[in-house]
């Protein structure tokens, strides 16, 4: 089966020279801060048909979220948050800074301030990152949230080129995102590529009725979108800390519709 003896001696010199040439390219790219490797993707145009959801179509998007929207009910929750903050203001003046944060949050009362740009997965690379359609030609920016068709945030844009972008999701080992709950407690969600790790950063008030952890505009996110359903994970306060690990629940597939919320 292994018929090796008849083959002539090979010369590997040229291969090794080209390996050195590639090493040189890495060095040049490193010292140019990836200018070379990102030059072509940033200037090359692949035209994808993208649907921009204008405000007149916002209701159709809301219908996608209706099952969750009824549970979370953005406006009611925000109103409740404002009430909670007012109560806290009386109890403790040191929470005034947090109240300002809430007032900022309350500016994003509904989705009318946002356009939802539809995008789709193109390819998955060997590092479990995804290429999605749309880039700087759609005003996408690094860090823009990406939602699935249920309204859950499934990741964010790590690298944006002219007509496509690289999406970082739970499946990527370098994924991490800051989240907040309705009591303004802060969390860090990170991934090792296999499991998600939730760690509390700042616990102000803990209650068992925390159902969802959200993205927040105070972290430069475009709005409040659910990421983690705490009812499906081990979510307990121990020594004033929350440390939880769990498997991915928001699994999306190659044909899942994705949306990127952009402020108008």
């Amino acid at each position, binding site marked *: 089966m292994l018929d090796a003896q008849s083959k002539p001696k090979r010369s590997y010199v040229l291969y090794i020279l080209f390996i050195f040439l590639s090493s040189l390219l890495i060095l040049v790219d490193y010292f140019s801060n990836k200018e070379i490797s990102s030059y072509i993707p940033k200037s090359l145009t692949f035209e994808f048909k993208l649907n921009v959801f204008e405000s007149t179509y916002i209701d159709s998007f809301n219908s996608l979220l209706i099952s969750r929207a009824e549970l979370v009910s953005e406006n009611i929750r925000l109103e409740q948050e404002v009430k909670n903050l007012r109560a806290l203001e009386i109890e403790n003046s040191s929470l005034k800074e947090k109240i300002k944060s809430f007032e900022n949050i309350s500016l994003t009362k509904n989705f009318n301030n946002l356009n939802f740009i539809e995008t789709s997965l193109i390819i998955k690379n060997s590092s479990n990152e995804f290429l999605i359609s749309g880039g700087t030609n759609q005003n996408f920016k690094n860090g823009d949230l990406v939602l699935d068709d249920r309204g859950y945030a499934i990741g964010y844009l790590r690298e944006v080129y002219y007509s496509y972008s690289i999406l970082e999701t739970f499946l990527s080992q370098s994924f991490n995102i800051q989240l907040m709950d309705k009591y303004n407690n802060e969390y860090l969600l990170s991934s090792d590529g296999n499991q998600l790790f939730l760690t509390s950063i700042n616990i102000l008030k803990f209650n068992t009725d925390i159902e969802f952890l959200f993205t927040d505009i105070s972290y430069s996110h475009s709005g409040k979108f659910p990421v983690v359903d705490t009812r499906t994970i081990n979510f307990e306060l121990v020594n004033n800390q929350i440390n939880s690990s769990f498997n991915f629940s928001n699994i999306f597939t*190659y044909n899942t519709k994705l949306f990127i919320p952009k402020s108008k």
Partner: protein
Amino acid sequence: MNILYSITIFFLFSATLIVENFLNLIIFNKYISISLFFILLFIFSLTRFNNKNIVPIMGTGLIYDIFLSENYLGVYAIIFLFVSVLTNYMFEKLINFNFKLIFIFALNYVIYNIPNILNFNFFSNIVLSAFINYLLFLLIKRFMRLSV
């Protein structure tokens, strides 16, 4: 003629690489990855190893670095070239033993996936994927009647 050969092989490699990535998107499993390009590279390194393949292999690596990954330019070019050289070298120089081919295949598959070595499940994933890809390689080998 050489240029035409190189261009043809380059397009074959690039197309296979894109199909590989697209296939893995459809399979959508974090534990299994089908590496058609690796199998093609392995076959070329065993049966058609020559200097005319250098530019297509390097070009495909650069395409991958530019469009499909966030790595620095040249990372995958080095990996592809190195896998090609090592595959051929081991096949030519290693003494014959029962599992020589699968040993070379598995070792080079690990090198092919070296950018993901920090992944938590790297080795368990590699074992499963290497096995599946080796079966695929055997199927292709039988189908193409390759004498390796």
